[in-house]
């Protein structure tokens, strides 16, 4: 089943036409990568799916976007519920300046889970699922800002996973990390794939080739080509895709 279906999506920042007629199907429980040169609209597209673009005054989306069959554009959509189901991990790790525990407990708490009502267990499970539990189980009260960059990003993933989302949006989640940490986060993504649909934006073509099952190439607000990652990297159908992946473009 497709997790996200997107038909004739157009997006505007004021008068600037940032996404032009995007059509896309993201399949469930797979990793889908979006690649393309800087400024082509990857982040914009990602942020349509959890309506984070709503924060930008003067921006506007038109078209038809469904998450597991439910329309998410328009006024009637409950954003808090949508964002609980569609979690997001940001480019720069942005843990809250709270304790490790409170960071992970944040989502469950605002969605109504109380201490004693399974909060401790949820926090533990989430930290385990991102491989932080063993390192941090004795440091749950420490300020999250004192962790290393990689740990912070893992914590942010744990925090997102804690609201039990269906989809994880990741906007260049490794760009602030060194190559070893990047490799370990990529491994983590493979582990998470069995439970979540992951949509990742990356600048790094090798990363897209390594981690993703499906891949989309964007250029100046258009989704030029979309399909199986192997196929895109070995036999691109569009000349522009080929130019980009062989390094002849941008």
């Amino acid at each position, binding site marked *: 089943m497709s997790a996200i279906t997107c038909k004739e999506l157009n997006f505007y920042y004021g008068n600037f036409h940032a996404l032009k007629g995007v059509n896309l199907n993201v399949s469930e429980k797979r990793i889908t990568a979006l690649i393309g040169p800087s400024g082509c609209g990857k982040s914009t597209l990602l942020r349509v799916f*959890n309506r*984070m673009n709503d*924060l930008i005054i003067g921006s506007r989306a038109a078209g038809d976007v469904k998450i597991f069959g439910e329309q998410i554009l328009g006024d009637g959509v409950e*954003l*808090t*519920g*949508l*964002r*609980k189901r569609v*979690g*997001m991990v*940001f480019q*720069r790790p*942005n*843990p*809250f*300046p*709270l*304790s490790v525990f*409170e960071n992970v407990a*944040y*989502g469950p*708490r*605002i*969605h109504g889970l109380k201490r004693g009502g399974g909060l401790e267990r949820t926090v533990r499970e989430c930290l385990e699922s991102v491989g932080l539990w063993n390192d941090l189980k004795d440091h749950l*009260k420490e*300020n999250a800002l004192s962790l290393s960059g990689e740990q912070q990003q893992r914590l*942010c993933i744990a*925090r*997102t996973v804690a*609201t039990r989302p269906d989809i994880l949006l990741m906007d260049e989640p490794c760009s602030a990390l060194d190559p070893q940490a990047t490799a370990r986060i990529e491994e983590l993504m493979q582990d998470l794939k069995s439970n979540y649909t992951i949509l990742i934006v990356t600048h790094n073509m090798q990363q897209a080739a390594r981690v993703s099952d499906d891949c989309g190439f964007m250029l100046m607000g258009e989704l030029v080509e979309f399909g199986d990652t192997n196929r895109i990297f070995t036999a691109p159908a569009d000349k522009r895709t080929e130019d980009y992946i062989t390094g002849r473009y941008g």
Partner: protein
Amino acid sequence: MDRFISKLLFLAACSSTAILALIALFIFKEGLPIMAKTGIGHFILGKEWAPLSGQFGIYAFIIGSLWVTIGALIFGVPLGVSCAVFLAEFAPPKWVGVLKPAIELLAGIPSVVYGFLGVMWLAPIIREHLGGPGLSILAASIVLAIMILPTIVSVSIDAIQAVPKSYKEGSLALGATAWQSTWRVILPAAKSGILAGVILGMGRAVGETMAVIMISGNATTIPHSPLDSVRTLTANIAIEMGYAVGDHRQALFATGVVLFFFIMILNTVALKFARRKF
């Protein structure tokens, strides 16, 4: 040239520290003998202030300063912080551009004007509706609260606006509402800045003299209710300095010494609150 400038700056730093040290030294030199003579315990806890008969107990003024300051914070902090939260987080940006300078302008109004307004407006209202002499702890607290509002609001707005946008984004992206994000992430992150504003405001409330003399009633007795008149430490010095000589004069300097420690203790307590673990 560089060395010359750094020498000059060093000299400036030294002299300003030295001036402060000299002032402190002078106050202590003038004030301590009478404290020793009366006995520190008697001076601080003595309930009788009768300079003409040699009774120097400033307990009532310490209590007066304490209540007036706490009262000002009780009214001023919730109002000021909510105002800052509203302006920094929920109001359209244009409003902030207009309202913040307007609020800061309030800080420029001389304290005698606030005192005058308090005497003319506030005191009669309190006298008629709540009883007592009107010139009271309650009246002084309200006037001081208004006077420290600009400091608290403007420093708090700066503190809230300095919180990285990524915190708010992260919170909203987890499905939190704007209000939840403010309460659970932004305010805790801005806490130390907001507290700095509160401490600044508190300093102003403790040190304020003119308005307090006008509005607090200046009774030298220990207050029993918020509607009673009080005299504060600062008011005590200002009211009596014109005619004090000898021991009396020294007792006023000693009041200054106590004021000095009073402010230090208040600041320490406030900082303790700030450093509390989340």
